[in-house]
């Protein structure tokens, strides 16, 4: 059709010009005739046919010649186009024939036929070649026709992505299919040619059909056509043409065994590991093997090399997982559990860059320090107050299944891939890329990457020596190293007065009584938990911390840190100097939003973290939970919470929503802290010391301590009533200090945090097992005129 139009376009001006010439001639003759009617006609009639004279004859001949010339030109143009078109179709059909034929024999027989057709006049070959490719690739063939001219240009582009993806370890699994291709390999000694040769190949289909060079270029199209056909067989063919014969022969041998395993693994799955270009061209639901095949083509040599060593690694990483959880912490585990509970037989893959299975963090700064077991750093077990011991790991290793078995396990399971970091996320393609360049595609994904501890700029600038003596506390390895340090060092300084800093200070302070270790805690606020507790309570707490054996330096801003004589010297802005052996920096958490850029996810500027809606969803198939999620709390507004129970609650909610629940964040999470044997509190909601507060206190008796609370209720886990995953017991107590019967003794009570006269946060100070009432008050969101009346609901005088 386009040809016709172009032809007509060419003809039209000629036609017009010729017609104007004709008209002009006619006019002239007419005029001439009109003017000299008498003498001319006779002359005209006598000389030329059709009443035309000599001049007119010339004009006629010119016009005629022009018409003939244009017609001839048009004809040749059309013919040439058609010929090129037919050649293209031939080329495509031979390729598809190659791919769809399972045996080498048939492949061999086809090319001669194809070759013959190609050299012949075009039209005859078309019907012959057309039917055969029709079967394997009906949808692709029509798509290919208009794309044919485009594809000529495409090859150079498509080869570019394949080399980029080249290092991908997928090559081995696909090359695994090469055993089938071995015979085909042998008959194709031609090495892969460069992409620029691709267009040239269009003109030279001559060298045996299957051995067409430019592997990358055929590959995408081939993929498209072979999509409905058997995947296993197609990839061998593709690989066969690309890989030089010799190396390819080696690989089939080693990869033969891996082939069946990999094929069976990925067979049920629906991977989507294509470069976007290929995706656009190829039909949906493409098998795993075909995609890496194209990647293998562009650079067979390195691929072959990497095949040997990367085969084991690629086998461990499944290429597809219906549920993919990025991050292996509390939120991720809670989500895994939720998914498994709601979707029977679900296959869940957790990818974590830590070497450990999912574990809970609170004991790392509390219970583990109070354990009597000298090997606690190895066992990571802690004793709860009811005597029951448990590990910080949520579940023992036998709970999880191997990632290789994930796809084939009958009832599904949870697999954990440790030591692998997700570096890139392709939201359009529903897949992620790991740091070893393997790709995993998913149906639903959870991002629960948590965060990394912040560091002080002064320490970072202070150099290597200082950094070596600094601990940023978060993981198991940090606990192990700090435990080691605490046994050997003479003085440890904790910078930071929040939850982690204060808890570590108390834990180390207890050790100081045994070992003579000096424990210093410094922070810019006026008292411990200065950003959480109202000032009077913060001061009270600081006194308690000091009683635990900690040297507290309040209102301390660090100016610089230097290392002198193997000791650290901390210079404060007000001139004070603190000499110590080791520093623990507990100055906050930086949420890990590395994937935001590649995934195109929004990052919150106020709170940090990925911005998600009330149902924890960032985009269609992506949820975020835990420390990294900045979510919309229907009651309390947008916030980001860095507590253990929130990780459990949000992880569980994300898991529910990933299995279709569509529930918003509604169940308010709580948190707790224990600072010494007689300071313990549970809290819920927004607990910010900058808000106005109303505190209702009773006098504390010896009964109102964290230890007493757990002993009475018989549960070693104070928060067991909340979420069964949280396992923490209050601080092991030494003989309780005698109750201070001072008027300003804040023994136990309830503190309400108000925002616009509505209670948005509650602290239960040394008052336990009343969290449900607190949760209800926050959920109601009512304005209460007298908060003393509200406090009555808590029965603070009772146990």
């Amino acid at each position, binding site marked *: 059709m386009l040809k016709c139009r172009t032809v007509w376009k060419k003809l039209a001006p000629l036609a017009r010009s010729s017609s104007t010439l004709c008209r002009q001639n006619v006019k002239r003759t007419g005029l001439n005739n009109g003017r000299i009617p008498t003498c001319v006609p006779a002359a005209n009639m006598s000389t030329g046919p059709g009443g035309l004279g000599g001049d007119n004859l010339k004009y006629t001949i010119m016009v005629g010649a022009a018409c003939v010339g244009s017609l001839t030109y048009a004809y040749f143009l059309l013919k040439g186009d058609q010929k090129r078109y037919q050649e293209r179709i031939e080329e495509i059909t031979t390729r598809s024939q190659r791919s769809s034929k399972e045996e080498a024999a048939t492949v061999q027989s086809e090319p001669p036929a194809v070759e013959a057709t190609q050299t012949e006049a075009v039209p005859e070959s078309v019907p012959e070649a057309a039917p055969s490719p029709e079967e394997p690739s009906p949808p692709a063939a029509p798509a290919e026709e208009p794309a044919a001219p485009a594809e000529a240009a495409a090859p150079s582009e498509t080869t570019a992505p394949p080399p980029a993806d080249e290092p991908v370890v997928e090559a081995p699994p696909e090359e695994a299919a090469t055993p089938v291709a071995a015979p085909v390999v042998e008959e194709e000694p031609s090495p892969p040619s460069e992409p620029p040769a691709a267009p040239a190949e269009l003109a030279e289909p001559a060298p045996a059909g299957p051995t067409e060079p430019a592997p990358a270029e055929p590959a995408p199209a081939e993929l498209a056509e072979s999509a409905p056909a058997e995947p296993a067989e197609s990839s061998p063919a593709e690989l066969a043409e690309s890989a030089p014969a010799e190396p390819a022969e080696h690989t089939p041998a080693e990869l033969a065994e891996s082939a069946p395993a990999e094929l069976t693994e990925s067979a049920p799955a629906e991977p989507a590991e294509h470069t976007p270009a290929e995706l656009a061209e190829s039909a949906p639901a493409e098998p795993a093997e075909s995609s890496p095949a194209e990647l293998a083509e562009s650079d067979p040599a390195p691929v072959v090399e990497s095949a040997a060593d990367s085969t084991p690694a690629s086998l461990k990483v499944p290429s597809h997982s219906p549920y993919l959880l990025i991050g292996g912490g509390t939120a991720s585990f809670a989500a895994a559990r939720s*998914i498994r509970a709601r979707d029977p037989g679900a296959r869940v893959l957790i990818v974590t860059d830590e070497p450990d299975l999912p574990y809970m963090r609170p004991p790392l700064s509390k219970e583990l320090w109070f354990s009597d077991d000298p090997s606690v750093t190895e066992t990571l077990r802690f004793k709860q107050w009811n005597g029951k011991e448990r590990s910080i790991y949520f579940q023992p290793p036998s709970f999880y299944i191997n990632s290789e078995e994930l796809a084939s396990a009958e009832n599904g399971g949870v697999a954990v891939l440790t030591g692998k970091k997700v570096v890139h996320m392709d939201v359009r393609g529903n897949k992620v890329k790991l740091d070893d360049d393997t790709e995993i595609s998913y149906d639903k994904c959870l991002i629960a990457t948590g965060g990394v501890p912040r560091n002080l700029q002064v320490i970072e600038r202070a150099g290597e020596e200082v950094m070596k003596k600094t601990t940023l506390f978060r993981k198991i390895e940090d606990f192990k190293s700090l435990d080691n340090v605490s046994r050997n060092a003479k003085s440890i300084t904790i910078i930071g007065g929040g939850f982690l800093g204060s808890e570590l200070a108390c834990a180390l302070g207890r050790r100081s009584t045994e070992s003579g270790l000096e424990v210093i805690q410094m922070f810019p606020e006026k008292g411990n938990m200065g950003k959480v507790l109202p000032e009077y309570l913060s001061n009270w707490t600081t006194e308690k911390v000091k009683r635990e054996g900690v040297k507290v330096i309040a209102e301390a801003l660090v100016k610089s840190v230097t290392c002198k004589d193997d000791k650290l010297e901390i210079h404060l802005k007000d001139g004070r100097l603190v000499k110590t052996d080791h520093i623990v920096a507990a100055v906050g958490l930086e949420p890990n939003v590395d994937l935001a850029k590649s995934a195109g996810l929004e990052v919150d500027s106020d709170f940090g973290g990925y911005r998600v809606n009330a149902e924890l969803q960032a985009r269609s198939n992506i949820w975020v939970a835990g420390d990294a999620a900045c979510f919309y709390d229907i009651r309390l507004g947008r916030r980001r919470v860095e507590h253990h129970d929130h990780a459990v609650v949000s992880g569980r909610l994300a898991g529910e929503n990933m299995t279709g629940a569509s529930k918003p964040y509604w169940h308010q999470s709580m948190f707790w802290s224990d600072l010494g044997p007689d300071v313990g509190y549970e809290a819920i909601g927004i607990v910010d010391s900058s808000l106005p*507060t109303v505190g*209702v206190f009773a006098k504390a008796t010896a009964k109102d301590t964290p230890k007493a609370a757990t002993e009475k209720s018989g549960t070693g886990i104070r928060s067991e009533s909340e979420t069964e995953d949280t396992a923490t017991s209050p601080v092991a107590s030494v003989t309780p200090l005698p109750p201070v019967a001072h*008027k300003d003794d804040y023994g136990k009570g309830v503190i309400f945090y108000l925002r616009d006269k509505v209670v948005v946060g509650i602290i239960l100070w040394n008052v336990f097992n009343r969290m449900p009432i607190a949760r209800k008050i926050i959920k109601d969101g009512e304005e209460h005129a007298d908060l003393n009346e509200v406090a009555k609901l808590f029965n603070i005088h009772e146990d």
Partner: protein
Amino acid sequence: MSSVRQEGKDKIIFVTKEDHETPSSAELVEEDPNDPYEERGLILPNGEINWNCPCLGGMASGPCGTEFKDAFSCFHYSKEEVKGSDCLEQFRAMQECMQRYPELYPQEDEKSSSKTSQDSTEESGANSTSASEQDSNTSQPDTESTAES
């Protein structure tokens, strides 16, 4: 008597026991039993089992989750006089699975409700078998031990 103090924006009230003896005048919003957002217990309002209940621990999500769900569902919907006596097969399958993971499902654990219900069903089964096989003493201890485990 209660004392009130104001420290800046913070109000501090000290109350004695007597101060709090009178019932509270604070009004709480009435709970909607069918609130879809609320966290539910073990049994949902429509009568189904909430597999995601924290009370179940990891039972429904572990390697033996499927077997546990089958057994517990059967027990829950059982209309027999001895509830769950028609679920022996499922419980047996569950126990077999759990025995393969002793780390996860310690055999001396008596806390899970499924175990107790299993015990009762096993016991009734054991009684019947022991009655029919009184002469073979070896089988009796076997059935008894399985009932106890």
